[in-house]
């Protein structure tokens, strides 16, 4: 049987801001249908790595191949294979939700007749929101619209940058369910998060990144099993039972980052 192509291949990625080396020689691959989490303290290089994958940042060196398309050589093809929800996504506040969906449907070359638009709004439980402006929606509703737009064109790879930050527990749970649905539909997802609960709940594999470098990549349970005896991890543990958060603190340290 032919081996399935990796959905994302990042090799030797280096990103600089002036003289600051933000991402240091990072390499990883994403397999079809997996949910991959990028975890790290503030300023660790998560968003910079995602921004490079999205094509928003020009890396100093390294290659990024999305769905078989090199981001440097075929950026439009690579971006067409991506569905993106940015950390600070905003849409024109003057536009209504239906108009924003129509705009992005046009941009991604997706036909959007009225019944399809109604179906999308129904699927995100916003049937009555077509004529509402984006700014009038709650945080959870905005996230749902944003995710619906990110997946309008049935992308191979979906990138979610801290998708649940600022959401209440109900909205967060709902978003996790949507991620599962996306995975069942065959999408591959990469997300950044500060929530260990989220990483354990939805991610098949996670990478812990700090000071611009990947420290470890594995499944959440394997990481717990591997580092269970590590003194730094044991000392980070608060209740005796080792959790993913203990592994994270043990590997990245207890110092608060700015």
């Amino acid at each position, binding site marked *: 049987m032919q081996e399935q192509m990796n959905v994302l291949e990042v090799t030797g990625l280096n990103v600089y801001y002036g003289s600051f080396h933000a991402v240091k020689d990072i390499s990883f691959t994403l397999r079809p249908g997996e949910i991959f989490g990028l975890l790290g303290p503030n300023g660790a290089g998560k968003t910079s790595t995602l921004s490079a994958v999205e094509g928003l940042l020009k890396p100093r060196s390294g290659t990024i191949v999305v769905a078989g398309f090199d981001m440097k050589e075929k950026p439009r093809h690579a971006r067409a294979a991506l569905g993106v929800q940015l950390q600070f996504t905003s849409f024109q506040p003057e536009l209504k939700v239906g108009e924003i969906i129509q*705009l992005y449907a046009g941009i991604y070359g997706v036909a959007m007749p009225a019944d399809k638009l109604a179906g999308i709004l129904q699927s995100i439980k916003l049937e009555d929101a077509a004529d509402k402006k984006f700014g009038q929606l709650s945080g959870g509703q905005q996230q749902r619209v944003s995710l619906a737009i990110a997946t309008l064109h049935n992308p191979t790879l979906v990138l979610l940058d801290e998708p649940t930050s600022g959401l209440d527990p109900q909205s967060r749970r709902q978003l996790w369910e949507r991620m599962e649905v996306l995975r069942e539909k065959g999408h591959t997802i990469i997300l950044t998060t500060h929530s260990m609960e989220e990483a354990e709940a939805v991610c098949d594999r996670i990478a812990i990144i700090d000071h611009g470098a990947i420290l470890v990549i594995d499944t959440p349970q394997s990481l717990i099993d591997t580092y269970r005896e590590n003194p730094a991890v044991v000392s980070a543990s608060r209740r005796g039972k080792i959790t993913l958060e203990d592994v994270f603190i043990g590997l990245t340290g207890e110092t608060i980052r700015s």
Partner: protein
Amino acid sequence: MEVNIPKTSAVFAALLRADLTTQWRNRRSFVLVLLVPVIILISWKDIVDKLGGAFALSSCITIGLVAIGLMGYSNSIARDRDKGIFQRLRVAPVASWSIMASRLTVQLMMILLLTLLVFLAGFYIDHITLPVAGYLFTFFTAIIGGILYLGLGQVIVGLIQNPETVNSTSRLVYFLFIMVGMFGEFGILGEKVKQISLWSPYGTVKHIISAGMEPTTWNNEATMALLVAIGYAAVFSGVGIKKFKWNNK
């Protein structure tokens, strides 16, 4: 794996439709930019009699162009950049130039609408009529002048990241240009300032618009003003594009 790459024309059409809707819904600034020159024209009835229709019309169109380029364009770009709207568009398979081209197309439409409104107000209120060639040529010179001020607006958003600072700077430059341009033109601020203002972005734009209204009187000085205006537009656009950042984070 296969992906669907939409045609550039289809992407541009989607962007333009959204940008036109945004412009239309920003009614307050939309009306302000278009109505201020018309109100000035109405209040200048006596000046029309003394200095002529071409002077009044060209002054009003120039004031409108400054407002479109400095206040309308630069502020909307600064706000959308700050809110991350451009970044969201740029992660889609959209050529960056088409995002800006759509914005500029909306502003060029505003320039044509402004010119038309000033002509209509001039005709119905001050009974100013121009030869057909004058009307047509003025649309052309208004676009040149508009490009100059859009370029200046681009310089402001290129050099300044904060949207509030862009807002205050563009207002300051707007009043500076209009006050120095108008008072300088009349010689109130002295002969030196008069010469400077005549060849300033305000003076050259006003000159080519005024001369374009009466094409038979177009002379070497008008050609020189046209070339200077094109030069300003090229320099402002070049600096503005070079310095522009899509993200201010």
